[in-house]
């Protein structure tokens, strides 16, 4: 154990920390696929999974956008509007960023 402790305390400890982080992250990355290999996908489960992409997006952006205040909400609205009208993702991204920087420049 003391040999292991000394190894961890050496500069190799950082490599071990990164390896440990990689391991648990990779397990998270594959766990969903492995799990679903053993689950029969019922209509109920399928409905749940179909709701996931939109749910993740809302769960990620809503708190951040509300914290950032109304200019952020206007910028998100502009990006969504351009995307709905044109379906060109890069243009919509530019519209959102542009709106936000214009508002901030005027404030």
């Amino acid at each position, binding site marked *: 154990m003391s040999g292991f402790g000394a190894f961890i305390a050496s500069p190799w400890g950082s490599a071990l920390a990164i390896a440990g982080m990689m391991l648990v992250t990779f397990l998270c990355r594959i766990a969903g696929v492995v799990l679903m290999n053993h689950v029969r996908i019922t209509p109920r489960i399928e409905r749940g999974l179909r709701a996931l992409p939109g749910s993740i997006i*809302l*769960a*990620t952006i809503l708190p951040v956008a509300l914290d950032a205040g109304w200019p952020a909400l206007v910028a998100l609205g502009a990006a969504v509007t351009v995307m709905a009208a044109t379906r060109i993702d890069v243009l919509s991204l530019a519209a959102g960023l542009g709106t936000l920087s214009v508002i901030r420049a005027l404030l």
Partner: protein
Amino acid sequence: MSSSPRPFFSLAGLRYGARAALPAFPGFIMFATAFGTAAAQKGLSLAETVGLSIFVYAGASQMVALEIWQQVWTPSTILTIMTVTAVVNSRMILLGATLQPWLRHEPVARSALNLFLLTEAGWLIGTRYHGEGGRDVGVLLGTGLILWAVWQIATIIGYFVGALVPQPRTFGLDLVMPIFFSVMLVPLWKGMRPALPWLVAGVVSFVTHALVPGYGYIVAGALAGVVAGMLIK
């Protein structure tokens, strides 16, 4: 579902995926540059910084890791950083679950690589392609590979010249990820009713964010959305 085409893999898909990833570039450049800058300020070596980006490749957990990074490691601090990383990245379990039908017939090694490269942004681009009827697994891999490469380059740039980058707020770049996410929401829209779980997810996430520190609000909101999706006919 029997009418949907069988999944396959093609090199043309790799190229398509790499191109489709373009709107995620600004967010990746922004985040990885910020990580590289913070890592340099924190005193991490270049090898440690790039090692995190190459092997862990998960932005939020890399940022959190900087807060608990040690000069001298002990078994307990290693265990701590692994636990925190697992908690922050647990939402990836959900992403993988939705990919299973698409990856079911893939060779294990290629799926392992595809999943090693799994990120929310890449998954959203892949989900959009899949939702539009695409089944080429090469697209998912092409998106994953190019975004990983962008992440590495931006990490190194951030490490060396991060302090010289002008105020990103001026160009709205601090919110580039939320804006990208909101853009990706549009192709998912199938009417009011299928969007009800999203609303549940947003509300639960907001409340969690207000009450609990850390990144837990994303997984809390996402899980609430899945449960709502299961309950709403």
